[in-house]
Structures are given as structure tokens and as C-alpha cells.
């Protein structure tokens, strides 16, 4: 590389992705001008800017939870055991698209998709196989499921109960954030209003029966991946979380009955300091919203508990091994931001389902941070930096302003139902692509510092999709259907239909149905009969 090939960084003006001008130097005056030190506080104390726990990683390091799952439940179980043997402390289950869309594996629409991007699940038997030999007390399980979350959560509770765990003590998480699916990721099934109602059913059910379980993980992550800025990522996530809270409050619960079990899922890529400030500002703002707007008395209700993961949006298909280095920096950001759980997209993820080697490398990356370089020693080590504290104040103000803007134009639920948020983030994604193509945003190995020689085939081991997995899955489904008590299934599904019609909580009926080995497709079908399907507004 010639010397003058290096990055050209303009001194002024330098504006970060969140629209804040970044100065070459920060002093006490900048901090004072941005609102001062009043909001910093101490970790474990309101407003939790420095962390939700007093001792943070000194007492308990972050959970490491790589996203995994593919093919049949047997294969997925094998990968789960591999990750646990290598020191992973939580599971994050990937489901195939038919399961995510509430279809059984033999549905015509599932053709070619069974077991492809995650594990195929049709009935409770698949869960029994996938979690065989895994202690659900020791390893917390996160289900990455949204559109069909009621069914998969019901299966998890049914499995836990049958294996003798006490639901009153069962921990775990479901993603179950349907509103963000309408913005990005796209696994919606029902229209917006009944979709929120189903989320409400899970929150209400868990508050009563599974109080240590986190029924919703509100995702800024996918909204950011769809083109949102870091400020919008936080603002939209908080607005969505508030929409769920408002819905559940209308059922007569109090905020302290359930808010402490809501968690968040955020994205890390881009400027390091901007991300750290985003999380510190977010923690403070969420605590303030829950106390000031909802009158929560329990401090835990306002904890912004989060999984903050290295985002796929920062990784590149070009020179994929560079993604290993990017992942390490993203994990560093996550630890500096006081995350509860960490996950990294693997370096080969732009190409394929991660290989064992790539999954282990991501895990090792997080373990090196935890074990070798002192990140667990001291809480919020960047706290007190003029730059980080100033940026934290500025980010909080910006997030609040975006939230007020959406509230002022009819609220988040309407904006999503009409497709306005989606259109806004896609246009931003397009602007970002143009900036990348003009090299205004620098990306190593893509538009600068790249190898000019003809790129050889990348050193990526492609995950093989096997048609026979699909056949095996359908064979099992057929067998389960023939062995189960058809009358019991029909009665349970009838009850479900009745409850959905009457507007009462569907969770108990779904649990009864899955215990009788009703399929994912059957449960979804009954709900579609009552709720209908979402019609996507086409705005871009």
C-alpha cells in the first residue's frame, strides 16, 4: 500500500451516524454544555447510566449466547452440545423459516426451506429431541421466534414442565417482538393489532405463571440492520416496548408486575464511542421513562437489560477474515457498554450458516475479552470521560427527540401499520449504500485498503443443505400425527379458537394443544381463522 492510500479523514465537520458533530477534543466545558454530570450516578442505582448492577462483571460476567440451529432437531442438539462443551453459557435457538412463519414442514409453502436457516420444529417431540441432555436450569435458552412465538414458547414451557422443572423458577428468553418484524426481518403473520395482543398474552401469562422468564426481547437490532441510525435504533425500540407496556396496562396489570421481565436486543457496528454512549444513554432514558411516565416503584422495572451483539450489518462479504477482527471490536464495545449477554455474528455468516470453526472463534473472541484483558475488573471503565459523557448526554437528547417526533405523528403502532417507519429506514439504507459506493463511508477491504489481485474463492466452508433432512422431518411429523390422540388435539384446538374469538388469553389453550402434539401449522391456522393475515403496505 502506498502512503497516500491511507484514509482521508476530514477535520471539520465530522458528523457521526447519529447526526452529532464530533470534536477533536472534549473538555469539562463540553460536558457542562451538554447537560453536565448530573445523570451519571452510580452503577446499580437509578438512572443506571453506568450499569444496572453495582458490581457488574466483577460479580457475574456476561452470558455468551451464539445463535445456532439448522436442519433437524438431532443436528441442532449436536451443535448445542458442541457450544456448551466449548464454554458457551446460554443458547440462542435459530428456527427455519417455515417454523418462524407458523407453517408445518409439509406445507407447500415450506418446500425447499425446511431446516435451511434454522432448526425445523413441527411438534413438541422436536423440542424434546433438540434439548435432550441440556440442563435448562444451568443453560438459559433464548428462542429467536416472533410470528409463531406463542406456539414455540408454549412448547418450551410444556417441555420444561414434563422434564420436572418448576415454571415458577424457569428462566429463559423469547425474542417475541413482533412490531420490529414489520420493520425488518419480516416474519409477521397476523395483522398488527392482533399481533400485539398475542405479545400481550405471553407477557400476561408469564407474569402470572413463569415470572422469571423474559417473554419479550425488544429488538433495536433488526431496525438498525434495516438502515436505522444508532439513535433511531434506540428510539424505535423504546417506542415499541412502550406499545407493549401500554397494551398490557390496559389489561389491568401494573407496570411493576411485568416491566422488569422485558429485555432488549441491540446492534453493534460503526463508531465505538457512539455505540458505548448509545447504550449508556439508552439505559438512563429507559429508567427515566419507566419511572416518570409509568410510575414504576420497583427499580428493576426500569432496567434496560440487554443482549448487545456484533451486528451482521458491519461485516463484509469481501475479505471475510477481516470480519474476525471486526467481531472482536464489536465484542469489546459490548463489554464496555455493560451488556448482560453477548453474541457475535460469525465471520462466515454473509455466506452460510456458521461452521463449527467459525462459531468457536466467536466464542473464543468473547472468552479472550473475559479472561485475558481486564474487561471484567472495573465497572463502566469509560465513565467520566469527557467525550463519552458528553456524547451520552447528546444521545439521550436525540433519542428522546426521535421518540417525540413519532408520538407527535400518530404513534409507533400506526407508523408501522402504514409502513412509514419501513419506508424511512429503507431510504436511509439506500443513502448508506450510495455513500459506501462513493467511499464516503470507509469500509476496509471493500472501498479502501483492498487487495487488488483477482479474488480467489474465499476460505469459507459452505454449510450443506440436505434434502434428506426435510424428508426425515416430514416422516417424523407423519408418525407423530398418526400416534397422537386426534380427539384430544381437536378439543384443544377448538378451545384455542374459542379463546381467540372471545379475546381471552390464548396461552393456556396453546399449551394444552402442543402437549397433545398439535403442530405449529395447526395452531397458526386456528389463529389465522380468527385474526386474518397482515397485508403489507408497499412503500419504499
Amino acid at each position, binding site marked *: 500500500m502506498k502512503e497516500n492510500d491511507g484514509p482521508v479523514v476530514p477535520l471539520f465537520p465530522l458528523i457521526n451516524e447519529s447526526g452529532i458533530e464530533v470534536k477533536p477534543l472534549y473538555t469539562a466545558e463540553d460536558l457542562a454544555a451538554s447537560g453536565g454530570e448530573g445523570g451519571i450516578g452510580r452503577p446499580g442505582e437509578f438512572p443506571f447510566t453506568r450499569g444496572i448492577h453495582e458490581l457488574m462483571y466483577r460479580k457475574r460476567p456476561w452470558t455468551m449466547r451464539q445463535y445456532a440451529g439448522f436442519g433437524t432437531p438431532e443436528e441442532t442438539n449436536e451443535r448445542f452440545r458442541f457450544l456448551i462443551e466449548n464454554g458457551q453459557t446460554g443458547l440462542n435457538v435459530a428456527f427455519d*423459516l*417455515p417454523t*418462524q*412463519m407458523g*407453517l408445518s414442514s409439509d406445507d407447500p*409453502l*415450506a*418446500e*425447499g*426451506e425446511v431446516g*435451511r*436457516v434454522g432448526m425445523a420444529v413441527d411438534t413438541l417431540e422436536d423440542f424434546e429431541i433438540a434439548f435432550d441432555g441440556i440442563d435448562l436450569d444451568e443453560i438459559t435458552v433464548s428462542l429467536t421466534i416472533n410470528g409463531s412465538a406463542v406456539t414455540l414458547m408454549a412448547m418450551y414451557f410444556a417441555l420444561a414442565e414434563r422434564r420436572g422443572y418448576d415454571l415458577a423458577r424457569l428462566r429463559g428468553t423469547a425474542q417475541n417482538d413482533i412490531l420490529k*418484524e414489520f420493520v*425488518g*426481518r*419480516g*416474519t*409477521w403473520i397476523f395483522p398488527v393489532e392482533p399481533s400485539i395482543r398475542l405479545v400481550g398474552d405471553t407477557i400476561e401469562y408469564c407474569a402470572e405463571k413463569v415470572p422469571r422468564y423474559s417473554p419479550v426481547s425488544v429488538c433495536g437490532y433488526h431496525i438498525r*440492520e*434495516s*438502515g436505522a441510525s444508532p439513535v433511531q435504533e434506540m428510539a424505535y425500540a423504546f417506542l415499541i416496548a412502550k406499545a407493549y407496556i401500554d397494551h398490557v396496562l390496559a389489561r389491568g396489570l401494573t407496570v411493576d408486575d411485568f416491566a422488569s421481565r422485558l429485555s432488549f436486543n441491540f446492534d453493534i457496528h460503526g463508531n465505538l464511542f457512539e455505540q458505548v454512549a448509545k447504550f449508556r444513554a439508552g439505559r438512563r432514558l429507559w429508567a427515566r421513562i419507566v419511572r416518570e411516565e409509568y410510575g414504576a416503584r420497583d427499580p428493576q422495572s426500569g432496567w434496560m437489560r440487554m443482549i448487545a451483539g456484533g451486528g451482521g450489518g458491519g461485516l*463484509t*462479504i*469481501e475479505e471475510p477474515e477481516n470480519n474476525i477482527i471486526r467481531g472482536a471490536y464489536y465484542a469489546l464495545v459490548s463489554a464496555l457498554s455493560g451488556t448482560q449477554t453477548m453474541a457475535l455474528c460469525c465471520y462466515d455468516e*454473509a*455466506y*452460510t450458516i456458521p461452521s463449527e470453526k467459525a462459531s468457536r472463534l466467536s466464542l473464543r473472541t468473547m472468552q479472550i475479552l473475559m479472561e485475558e484483558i481486564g474487561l471484567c475488573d472495573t465497572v463502566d471503565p469509560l465513565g467520566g470521560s469527557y467525550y463519552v459523557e458528553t456524547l451520552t448526554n447528546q444521545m439521550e437528547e436525540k433519542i428522546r427527540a426521535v421518540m417525540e417526533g413519532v408520538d407527535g405523528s400518530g404513534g409507533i403502532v400506526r407508523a408501522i401499520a402504514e409502513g412509514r417507519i419501513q419506508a424511512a429506514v*429503507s*431510504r436511509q*439504507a*439506500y443513502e448508506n*449504500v*450510495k455513500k459506501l*459506493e462513493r467511499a464516503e463511508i470507509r469500509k476496509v477491504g*471493500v472501498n479502501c485498503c483492498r487487495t487488488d489481485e483477482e479474488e480467489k*474463492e474465499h476460505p469459507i466452508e*459452505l454449510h450443506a*443443505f440436505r434434502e434428506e433432512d426435510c424428508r426425515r422431518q416430514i416422516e417424523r411429523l407423519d408418525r407423530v400425527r398418526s400416534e397422537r390422540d386426534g380427539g384430544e388435539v381437536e378439543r384443544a384446538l377448538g378451545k384455542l379458537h374459542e379463546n381467540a374469538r372471545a379475546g381471552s388469553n390464548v396461552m393456556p389453550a396453546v399449551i394444552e394443544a402442543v402437549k397433545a402434539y398439535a403442530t405449529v401449522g395447526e395452531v397458526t391456522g386456528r389463529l389465522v381463522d380468527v385474526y386474518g393475515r397482515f397485508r*403489507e403496505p*408497499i412503500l*419504499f
Partner: protein
Amino acid sequence: MLVAKPGLDGHDVGAKVVALALRDAGFEVIYTGLKKTPEEIVRIAEQEDVDVIGLSILSGSHLHLCEKVEALLEARELKDKLFIVGGNVPKGDHERLRKLGVDGVFATGSRTDSIVSFIRERRERTR
């Protein structure tokens, strides 16, 4: 030009970015939205009389879906339409897609201007 999302894959950032880029370049663009079957896509292409059909597929099921769309295009005598595909298509599959009848493959990381100029050149040639 029709930009379509076949199958169950819900990742539509790329499809929308390409649709916006083509619109900026002067094309009239129709976007189908998510989760359309090959039958629905070909029907829309026929009804709207588009010149170009672009599929965006990120789930890995591109071979399966392209084969179906190609068969429908042949059956309805719509082979004059330019058929292109984008998404995370591994290099090893590019040739297989071309053999199936796909005219152009634009894997993740392709520049939007390369898509625009490919379509322009091919349309010039067939005029």
C-alpha cells in the same frame, strides 16, 4: 421492472435498495413485497407487462425458487423478459443459475450501478 421477494425470507433491505437505485436511474419499478410465490410473481410480471424480473433471495433457496420461476416463464411464453437474481448466492451456484436460464446474478456486495448498466446493455441489445 419488477423487484420480487419469493419464498419465506423476510430480508428486504437489499430488494428495496435495488428498487430505489433503479427508480433513481429512471426505471419504473414495481416491488412485490414479501413472501410471494413463484406463481404470484410471474402473474404480476405478466399483468404489469414488465421488461425485467429481479428476484431477491437471501435464505439460500435460490436454486429451487429460480427453477420454478423459469419453468413458469417458459410455460407462459415470457422468455423475452430479462431475468436477474440478487442475494447471497455462493460463487459455485452462479453458473448453475445461468444454466437454469437466469440472465444475470448479482451476489451480495454488487454495486447498484453495475445492476443498472447490466439491465441497460441487455435491453439495448434486444431492441
